[in-house]
């Protein structure tokens, strides 16, 4: 399991820049960033090498930020890679709230899933490891 930082941003000019600058100035390196948007606000989700440090820097700068546990899985670089992965999870009756993808290096990519419920999340990670997938831990990203 890895830690994702979620930041609440108003739809206002310059806020995303301020957010990224804040994390950069804290010496934190981002691996992935995705934005979920509504009419009035955005939620920025970030995977980085030091989530705790990022969270502290954001709170100190008066951003409203949370830390959330998500499952990160290394996906094979071939057609059907993600489908194989989801098939393993299929009979667990999970609710995947959202997901996105980022590349770790030229050969490998990782999928990130937010699965509803802590126990369900851990169960999914265990099942994926059993099936031979590499489930990322925070140390893998440091």
């Amino acid at each position: 399991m890895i830690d994702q930082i979620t930041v609440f941003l108003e739809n206002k000019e310059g806020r995303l820049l301020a957010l990224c600058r804040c994390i950069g100035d804290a010496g934190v390196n981002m691996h992935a960033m995705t934005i979920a948007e509504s009419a009035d606000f955005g939620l920025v989700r970030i995977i980085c090498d030091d989530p705790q440090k990022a969270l502290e820097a954001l709170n100190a700068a008066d951003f409203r930020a949370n830390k959330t546990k998500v499952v990160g899985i290394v996906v094979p670089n071939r057609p059907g890679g993600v489908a194989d992965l989801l098939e393993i999870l299929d009979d667990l009756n999970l609710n995947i709230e959202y997901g996105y993808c980022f590349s770790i290096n030229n050969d490998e990519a990782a999928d990130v899933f937010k699965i509803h419920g802590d126990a369900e999340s851990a169960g999914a990670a265990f099942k994926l490891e059993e099936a031979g997938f590499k489930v990322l831990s925070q140390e893998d990203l440091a």
Partner: protein
Amino acid sequence: MSIDQDVLKLPHDQIEQIQLDGIKKTAVRVYENVPFYKNSFDEARFNPYEINSLDDLSKAPFITKQDLRDNYPYKLFAVPMEDVLEIHMSSGTTGIATVGGYTKHDLDIWGECFGRGVTYADGGPKDIVHVCYGYGLFTGGLGAHYGGLCSGATTIPMSAGNTERQIRVLKEMGSTIICCTPSYAMHIADTAIEMGLDPAKDFHLRAGIHGAEPFSDNFRADLEKKLNYKVLDVYGLTECMGPGVAIECMEQTGLHLAEDHFYAEIIDPATGKNLPDGEWGELVLTSVDREAQPVIRYRTKDITRIIPGECACGRTHRRIDRLHGRTDDMMIIRGVNVFPSQIEDVMETFDDVSSWYQIELSTKNSLDVVTLKAEVNPGFDLDSVASIENLQNSIQAKLKTALAVGIKVKLVEPKSIPRSTGKAKRVIDLRKENEK
């Protein structure tokens, strides 16, 4: 100095006699010395020499804030300028500033009236009164200051601002009673908590005398919890002296009017007719014994009521209810009357938003649009768009039930709503600008 406690427990008919005797003299004095009153009494065919009961006063014409502005700066003074010792001006929340003048006698009364609040909080010479209303033309600072002195308490003239220094003084100098606006008290409490202090333990406060802006029961409860003290509401206005016209006692069931110095009526703001005790309407005040600038039937525009019956504390001065807003703060949104305090009551039932909110009125396709901005609190699970939208929707639904008008709720980032050291600016009206 000390505060006369006996006058607060006089039988009410004796208080009424003091009022009648005082008003008879005051009405004649203004008629003979102030051209404005000569004209307005004559025009209304009101004879100030024939006031035989307090009820007769209801035949006198009103004086309004506009009359005060029209007679700027000194034309309503009823004494020669050499007898005027001090000048104050209103904070001008709703327009041009209005002037208040005070003789030695007027300043003594002011200190006495506000000082009663200190004694309502069981305070006196052993107390330390921390005044962080702004000092200067605003009546809050010096009014509370004179009250502190008059009660015999040690008075610290902090004035507003420099919040970290306020916190240091509150912690280190043992202040027991704090006087400021309720929103500034909240700002001090929140800043202290942010600095890693627990103001409930680290401060030594027993009571706060807070006024100059309306605040809800929930806001009061929140303050009392954070600062571990009792909040007493104080009412006043520059046009009729300043803070101290009415102050709550520890029963917290309404504000005791200083009835030996002010005579209060409640009128229907639309018709100007007097309303019976218990009914909500506009407060109208008459000076019993003010010298420099007495008012006869001043329309305060503040909405309250006279609370019928006696207070459990045993004081006989009648109480007004906590202010329900001002006739000119009242927003008319798509034909529905809305007071900011009603919105505040709803907001404070939600733990996930802070006490800071702002209402923005605008026009879209010639319809009023109300947007309420509120800050999300730490600890709220904001990981999904749905969780934020659910919070917005549930606040919207509750507001709709409480106000019978739709308000769009917009959650905003921390500290994006400006903090104030004086009166909080809760409402921003862009409707006129939208029409341009």
